[in-house]
């Protein structure tokens, strides 16, 4: 807990609110084809110094969620409801101008593809300087020194010289480092990384993850890492939210979700991941089918049409939305199969086959 959070907590009756508290977030996009329910009733929280991993396939609502936290849906057709509390302040009800002041300063974002996310016509240095000066009244010279310092800190050799380079003159890994330098230039307390390593070489991925952890330790920032790479989550996250069809289907700390997994979708994700530390037993076992259309979601459990175990319970899976039931600690699962049965299946059938 930081000093600010403690001071705030003292004024509040009841439990300390989390640093970031997302409550019942709904993001819908009206389109000509119908209402796209990108995110439907999503809740999670992150404390400073902690890392939350949001996992899911494409179209599960991960990126839409992160953009909602940045207030990037303002001025678009998106319909939002629920609350996104950052230090107790609801981002969704803030006026545009105040959200703008949060962006970059308190909440910063690292994007997936650093080449397309950096402006091709401006130098790396000037883009970082711009990010700094928009929130800090300093001279260009001060901002430049700061930018070079940041570039140096994220491990870019010869930072003073590379300052004047354009994005296309950087390698992929260096670009992502520059992107991180830009995101961190205002010392944000919340960093949202949207697939930060997906576009990078595997060797560079590890370096970037290390860098993010170092920075977290140094600044005590909260990190939300959005990815479909379970390996990345297992490595750096403290808590995990598994998303499917715009909602959370399993959440808990990393051990609970990956080692005492109870949701058939999470099992599917784990099974479709290549493992080097096990003997090869033939092909990988991907989840059959494709993610549901967010316009016409299945009536019952959203995952039911692809679920291998949908006949275990029968009728309710197809007609009734399961609730997100708390099992123990922070571990919650959205599934109609009874808890004891799921535990048994995991221990006896699923885990041995991974």
């Amino acid at each position, binding site marked *: 807990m930081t000093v600010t959070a403690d001071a705030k907590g003292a004024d509040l009756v009841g439990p300390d609110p989390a640093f970031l508290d997302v409550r019942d977030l709904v993001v819908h996009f009206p389109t000509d084809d119908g209402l796209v329910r990108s995110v439907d009733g999503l809740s999670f929280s992150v404390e400073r110094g902690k890392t939350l991993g949001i996992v899911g396939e494409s179209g599960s609502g991960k990126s839409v969620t992160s953009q909602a936290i940045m207030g990037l849906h303002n001025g678009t057709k998106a319909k939002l409801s629920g609350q996104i509390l950052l230090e107790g302040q609801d981002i969704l009800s803030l006026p545009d101008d105040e959200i703008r002041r949060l962006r970059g300063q308190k909440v910063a*974002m690292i994007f997936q593809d650093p080449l397309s996310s*950096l*402006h*091709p016509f401006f130098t790396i240095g000037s883009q970082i300087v711009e990010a700094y000066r*928009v929130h800090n009244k300093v001279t260009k010279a001060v901002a430049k020194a700061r930018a070079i310092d940041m570039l140096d800190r994220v491990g870019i050799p010869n930072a003073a010289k590379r300052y004047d380079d354009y994005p*296309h003159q950087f390698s992929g890994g260096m670009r992502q480092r520059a992107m991180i330098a830009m995101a961190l230039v205002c010392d944000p307390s919340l960093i949202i990384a949207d697939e930060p390593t997906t576009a990078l070489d595997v060797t560079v991925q590890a370096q970037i993850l290390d860098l993010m952890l170092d920075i977290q330790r140094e600044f005590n920032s909260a990190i939300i890492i959005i990815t479909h790479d379970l390996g990345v989550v297992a490595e750096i996250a403290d808590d995990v939210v598994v998303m499917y069809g715009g909602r959370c289907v399993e959440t808990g700390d990393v051990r609970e979700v990956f080692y005492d997994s109870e949701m058939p979708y999470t099992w599917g994700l784990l099974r479709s991941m290549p493992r080097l530390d096990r003997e090869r037993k033939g092909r990988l076992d991907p989840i059959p089918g494709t993610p549901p259309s967010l316009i016409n979601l299945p009536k019952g459990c959203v995952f039911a049409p692809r679920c291998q175990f949908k006949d275990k319970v029968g009728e309710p899976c197809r007609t009734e939305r399961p609730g997100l039931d708390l099992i123990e600690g922070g571990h919650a699962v959205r599934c109609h199969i009874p808890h004891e049965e799921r535990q048994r299946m995991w221990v006896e059938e699923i885990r041995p086959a991974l």
Partner: protein
Amino acid sequence: MLRYIVRRLIGAVFVVLIISLVTFGLQYLAYHVGGSPAYLFLGKAPSPEQVAAFEKQWGLDQPFYVQYLNYMKGIVTGRTLGDGTPGSEQACPAPCLGYSFQYHDTVTNLIKQAFPVTASLAIGAAILWLVSGVSIGVLSALKKGSIADRSAMVVALAGVSLPVYFTGLILLYVFVYWLHLFPPPKYTEFTENPLLWAQNLILPWVTIAFGTAALYARFTRANMLETLNEDYIRTATSKGLPRRTVIGKHALRSALTPVITIFGMDLGLLLGGAILTEKTFSLPGLGYLTVNAIARSDFQVVLGITIVAAMFIVVANLVVDVLYGVVDPRVRYE
């Protein structure tokens, strides 16, 4: 960079050479198939002897390649036309682009007189269409789907579709002959009276700019919409930049860069003469000169103007390419 420009310039010379060869060939054919320029020069029904004497005097009896080489040499060094008999000499200093049998003047002189008119027309219209087209395009993109956007795009579609002789005539009718807002157009030189110069050129400027601005508005709007969807615009917003910086700096910079390309090309093309507009408004520019020369089979004039126009386009091309490298840091010249 310098090496690139030199190499491109050499290339440009070749392009102009090929165009001159083709045009000269056409001119040669036109005289051989369509009749000697002697008829243009000598007036009614000259005798065969007179025609033969005329052709000898102007070197038209010589083989094609000799005529072409003489012509090209004239561009570089100038030449004296005529056969040397007293009174027939016609000095044609470099760059000599031929002789007009219709106007009894060198083509170079004719172009020199007509070019300021065309340049006035082209530059004024270019500023008008660039400013109006680009701003309408940008605003339309920012207000995509609004009534203003839709009406602007309908007008733009009309602008692209309507031919200039139609727009020009309508403008003439409405503003000159009906509302009497302008006197009937008569070209006045800028140095003589700038106000009158502009007054006489407003309608032609609008005529050309209307169609081209429409094109630019549509082009800019499409570019802008594409740019606004780019990841780096989202990055700029995520940095906390105010919307006017995101639009005015990050989006405009990318959206307008391709406009440079078409602008350079269009301006280069227009400097070679706006045939329809000049004819509609009786502006004595290169286009007007061309039409009259074609009508009177005065092919040396057509030849000269074609070479000059080709040069403008080739140079505009080069300027655009070099400029693009300045604007877009990803472009490198080898």
